[in-house]
């Protein structure tokens, strides 16, 4: 199962900078490791992460093999309006994970 965990405050003041912490359950297999019998384990990583805020991209990342297993990506955004933050991870072998979080301006 494509598990992800996202921490976003439920509400914020308009103009407040909010911190967003994201974690995705993924082995991030580098493609450099071998089994005990010497077979190379093929690369299997998350390559892209995007966060949109009411449909507008506010953050994007490109990941490589050196990002640790179960990748953590934490960043900030300005709370501009009430709405939905959408998160999408994509990677090798058709990996896709998504998450939505509601943010309310108070």
């Amino acid at each position, binding site marked *: *199962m494509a*598990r992800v*965990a996202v*921490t976003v405050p439920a509400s914020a003041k308009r103009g407040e900078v909010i911190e967003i*912490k994201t*974690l995705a*359950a993924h*082995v*991030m297999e580098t493609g450099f490791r071998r089994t005990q019998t010497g077979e190379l384990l093929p690369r299997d990583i998350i390559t892209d992460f995007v966060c949109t805020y009411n449909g507008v991209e506010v953050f994007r990342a490109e990941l490589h093999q050196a990002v*640790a*297993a*179960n990748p*953590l990506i*934490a960043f900030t955004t300005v709370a501009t309006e009430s709405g939905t933050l959408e998160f999408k991870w994509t990677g090798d072998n058709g990996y896709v994970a998504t998450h939505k979080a509601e943010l309310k301006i108070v």
Partner: protein
Amino acid sequence: MRAAALFLAAFCACTQAGEIPLAERRSGYEFMGRETRAMQDDDTTNPALFALLDGETLWNRADGAAGRACAACHGDAAQSMKGVAARYPAIVGAKPLNLEQRINACRVEKQRAAAFAYESKELLALTAYVARQSRGLPIAIEANDTTRPFIDAGRALYERRQGQLNLACSQCHDDNWGRSLAGTPIPQAHPTGYPIYRLEWQAMGSLERRLRNCMIGARAEPYAYGSPEMVELELYLMWRARGMKLETPAVRP
């Protein structure tokens, strides 16, 4: 490798401290760097959180021929499982069972489902979820007439030299804790946070996996998962850590 062995032999010959006094016991947490401790402390980014989420799902999922979930009998784990992990391994019938074995016994007998394999994602997740309910509680293993023979057997294994390096667990973890081995600090080997997310594994793992890791490191043939020796060793280690607080899910390097 030979240099390492010679180094170890010389290093272990130099001190003989014996059992650690109760007041001087320290969790492996205290031997970690600030950043690794922070990783354990933040519930929202502790990499073990996925195991807890999976464990919760398994707890509530009907399974086996009986079609029952753990929750169907035990209800809310936060209530029913509170303090349970602090008492394991526990004597069930005539022998000690560790938490993983207890969970699997429940699966086989009550859910009539197949036992989860050792170190499977499922068994680690369910064990972590159950043990999480005891976080912050003191380890409560008592030495009494029932447990003492098994604790003593575990202690004998802990103090017995083994493997090509001819090392006993106690030589590192009683006699030389706090010193360094290949640049990393030697902890006191208290099983306060299992199952753990170990950075070296980049995954969750059980106390038995950690013990096997040490045995392989000493070039010894490790005991099989679930073997009586393993469980006795676990029981001794938990008794040795009695009163210390459970941290599950801990992060360790």
